[in-house]
């Protein structure tokens, strides 16, 4: 869908992006992650032709990204901005028309999204008179009112209550199912893990990782085990020997404890079970799955140590 090839961008000799290459796959939700100042906003602005690369190029559906393609892109910036003295209806119609829809199409699409996003009662209200959450909904509608193929959403769920978060998430999955491509920039790792099939990690203007979530997790196997046992803590600790390190443990109910262990060397679950058998009664044991946050922090730390 979007191909970014060897793109570099600097501002007054300060590099914002350095030789960035990646692909945003069609029909998927891709998470864009990175610490502050990593170059996410610059990358997003390049995709919207708000900036032009110093080097490299961007392609949209195999063609060099041009102004005409902007009609097929929807953008929700992190810093929300609407015309405060236009009504919800006027706002949506105006932006739809700017994106190339005819007056009739724009009005019809605006009406559709006003109903879909449950904003009928606010149709003729000016933006400045709306609550923050309602204005967020209008902002979201502005990004999708022209039915774009590619959606760039920067922190799209910030400022919504749980009900509306659910509504927007459902909509995003509907878009994905309809074959639309979504780039989701956020600091909320759990949300990326829940919603995205692909992830791009940027740091200091460079791509640290760009892969599917599955591949990312496959590459980062955890060294932690979780054991639920019945018995004394002393017997459990003695059974670990030097093969495993007890990180922490928590008594769940009378006599049942859950412990988190860090393996040392090339020890396996079988080794752990062998060590524990005869000392405590094992209720459950599993390898702890790493979360995206751990991977993110691990990757950044690794880079900084190099």
């Amino acid at each position, binding site marked *: 869908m979007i191909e970014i090839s060897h793109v570099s961008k600097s501002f*007054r000799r300060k590099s914002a992006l350095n030789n960035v290459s990646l692909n945003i796959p069609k029909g998927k939700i891709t998470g864009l992650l990175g610490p502050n100042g990593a170059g996410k906003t610059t990358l997003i*602005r390049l995709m*919207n*032709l*708000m900036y*032009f690369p110093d080097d490299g190029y961007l392609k949209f559906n195999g063609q060099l990204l041009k*102004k005409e393609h*902007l009609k097929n*892109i929807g*953008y929700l*910036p992190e*810093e*929300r*901005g*609407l*015309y*405060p*003295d*236009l009504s919800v209806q006027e706002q949506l119609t*105006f*932006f739809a*028309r*700017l*994106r190339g829809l005819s007056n009739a199409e724009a009005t019809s699409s605006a009406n559709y999204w006003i109903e879909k996003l449950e904003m009928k009662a606010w149709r003729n209200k000016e933006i400045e008179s709306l609550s923050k959450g309602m204005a967020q909904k209008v902002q979201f509608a*502005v990004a999708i009112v022209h039915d774009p193929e590619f959606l760039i959403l920067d922190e799209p769920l910030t400022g919504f209550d749980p009900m509306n978060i659910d509504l927007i998430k459902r909509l995003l999955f509907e878009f994905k199912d309809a074959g639309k491509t979504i780039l989701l920039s956020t600091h909320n790792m759990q949300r990326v893990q829940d919603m995205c099939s692909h992830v791009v990690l940027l740091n200091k203007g460079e791509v640290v990782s760009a892969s599917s979530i599955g591949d990312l997790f496959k590459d980062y196997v955890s060294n932690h085990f979780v054991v639920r046992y019945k018995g004394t803590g002393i017997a459990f600790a003695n059974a670990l020997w030097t093969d495993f390190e007890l990180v922490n443990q928590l008594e769940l109910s009378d006599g049942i404890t859950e412990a988190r262990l860090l393996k040392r060397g090339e020890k396996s679950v079988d080794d752990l079970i062998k060590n524990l058998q005869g000392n405590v009664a094992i209720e459950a044991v599993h390898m702890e799955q790493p979360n995206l946050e751990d991977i993110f922090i691990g990757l950044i730390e690794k880079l900084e140590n190099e």
Partner: protein
Amino acid sequence: MNSILLISWKEIKQRVFKRSYTLVLVLGPIFILTCFYLLVKAADEGKKNVHVLIADPGDILRGVISSKEDPNLRYSFVSDYLEIDEFSKGKPYQEFDALLEVNEKVLNNKKVFIFYRDYLSNRIQNSIRFTFERRIEEVLIDEFSDLTVDDFRQLKQPLNLDFRSITNPTNSNDGEAGWVGYFFGSIIILFTLFYGMSILRGVAREKANRVVEVMVSIVSPTQLMMGKIIGVGAAALLQLVVSLVLIVCGLYLFQEFLFSDFFLNQSLSGVQVSEGATELLQNEFQRVRNNDVIHLLYDRINLALMLPFFFLFFLVAYIFYGAFFSLIGAAMGSEGDGQVLILPLVLLLLFSLFAGYFMVLNPSSQFSSICQYIPFTAPMAVMVKLSMGYALGEGYLLWISFLILLLSAFVILAIAGKVFQSSLLSFGHRLSLKSLFRWRTRV
């Protein structure tokens, strides 16, 4: 182009459909017409229906003052001297508003007094003065010459020695007409300032509430800037046109219904003249009547010439200055930023007003000539020049001024477009001249 029109239309709607705009649209012309009315009325304050008693002991006027009746002026005669005290307090004289004392030697000493009870309006004073002077003229002719009244008045015309520049031989230092140009130039400058500031505030507000980020993800910054300039300009133009139409209609109605007695033909009624002398008398009356405001507005403005050039220069001057205002708005880091650059621009506009004032007083000076080629002062300078009249064969100078202004507007638009593009997504900085130059060169 479609995007520019859409943005322009939004800007127009945002302004035109506001209650404040409609109020200014209606109240502005009403205010100007009221000021004009008050100005005229202030010059015409005093009693308007007057009965004058002429004390003519020598029967100089032979019981005649004018051949026709003036509805506002009545004359009666007594053939004896009348003491002021007697006129003031005497019961038979209370119906008279003024006493015109014609002494027996008036044909020699040319001295006449008129004593009034309440102050007489300027128009009434002028009318009495004019009528009396004409009557005395007729008596003088009758007494001392064999000439006809018409011949006498032809001879009496003063010699008009008119000083004119060899560079401008067809026109003189017509200060009065110059003020008309100054008025038109001032409208250009004031509207440009007012609506230029509106562009600046609009851009700064959109930067502050970050809608600009959504906008430039759809349209180019140059399109956004052009849309804004055109939209705000159209709102300004609409206001200007409606205001001018209302003012012109108002002036017409004033002429027809309120100030009808100020106009020449009616005012000449009652004076004993032949047809041939009417023109001379009109000039004479014009000289003595004391209402320059009416004269300036109704007699001296060549609207057919002024208006097309006024609109042409208004549009180009607005684009020229509007581009400056929009680039400052785009370069501002916050809504309150930018004073450092607004001030010089406002000073330039004020300088333009000063330049126009100077030109009216010194139209042939080198400064005046230079001003019409400087884009900042050209709109004002050309309006003043135009109202005074270009010398024969020098009309092309007007087009040179226009071309310079037009080219400058294009150059500033191009620079503003670059600054707009580079600076629009920069927030939170302090605006400086240095940053403007940096943005001008950054792509």
